[in-house]
């Protein structure tokens, strides 16, 4: 496994952990799952710390002889960024159209207050990051 592939895995794990932690902190879990909330929060923190330590270790023990990144890594990174960009664009268009629709349709379901919109945007950013890294991992397995 190349360094860039390991970075893709650790970044995917940390993005999932941050999104999960953020989601629980902002919205909480349904009442039926409230018993495992603290366990889940602790798991997300541990996953994030694990990913951080792995990235730190790779950064510290990098060998001078080996090539860190080459054209294949750049190509795969480009595919990941492309998919993340598509997702982010679709998400933003959906959010803007929902906000516009909410002006005309009452009881649209979600209150589009400023904090809610901010939470959705932060969520969309982390989802885009997850899509980016998941795409990279897919192509690292395939080519």
């Amino acid at each position: 496994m190349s360094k860039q592939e390991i970075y893709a895995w650790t970044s995917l794990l940390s993005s999932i952990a941050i999104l999960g932690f953020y989601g629980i902190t902002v919205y909480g879990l349904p009442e039926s799952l409230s018993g495992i909330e603290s366990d889940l929060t602790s798991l997300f923190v541990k996953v994030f710390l694990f990913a951080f330590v792995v990235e730190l270790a790779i950064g510290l023990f990098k060998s001078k002889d080996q090539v860190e990144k080459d054209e294949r890594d750049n190509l795969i990174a480009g595919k990941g960024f492309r998919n993340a960009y598509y997702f982010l664009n679709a998400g933003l268009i959906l959010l803007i159209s929902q906000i516009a629709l909410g002006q005309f349709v009452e009881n649209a379901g979600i209150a589009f207050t400023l904090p809610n919109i901010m939470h959705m945007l932060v969520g969309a950013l982390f989802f885009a990051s997850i899509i980016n890294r998941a795409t990279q991992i897919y192509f690292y397995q395939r080519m």
Partner: protein
Amino acid sequence: MTQAELAEKVDATRQTINAIEAAKYSPSLELALKIADTFDVPIGDVFWLEK
């Protein structure tokens, strides 16, 4: 020559050399020329179009 040695000579990662050998990845013209140059053979001896 090992994959790691070739990778070092052509400024690529060992995984890229492995992917090229397994026909999973087509290198750029620059990398293909570097590989051919390393073995001191024409590029057509190393890479060719499947028909």
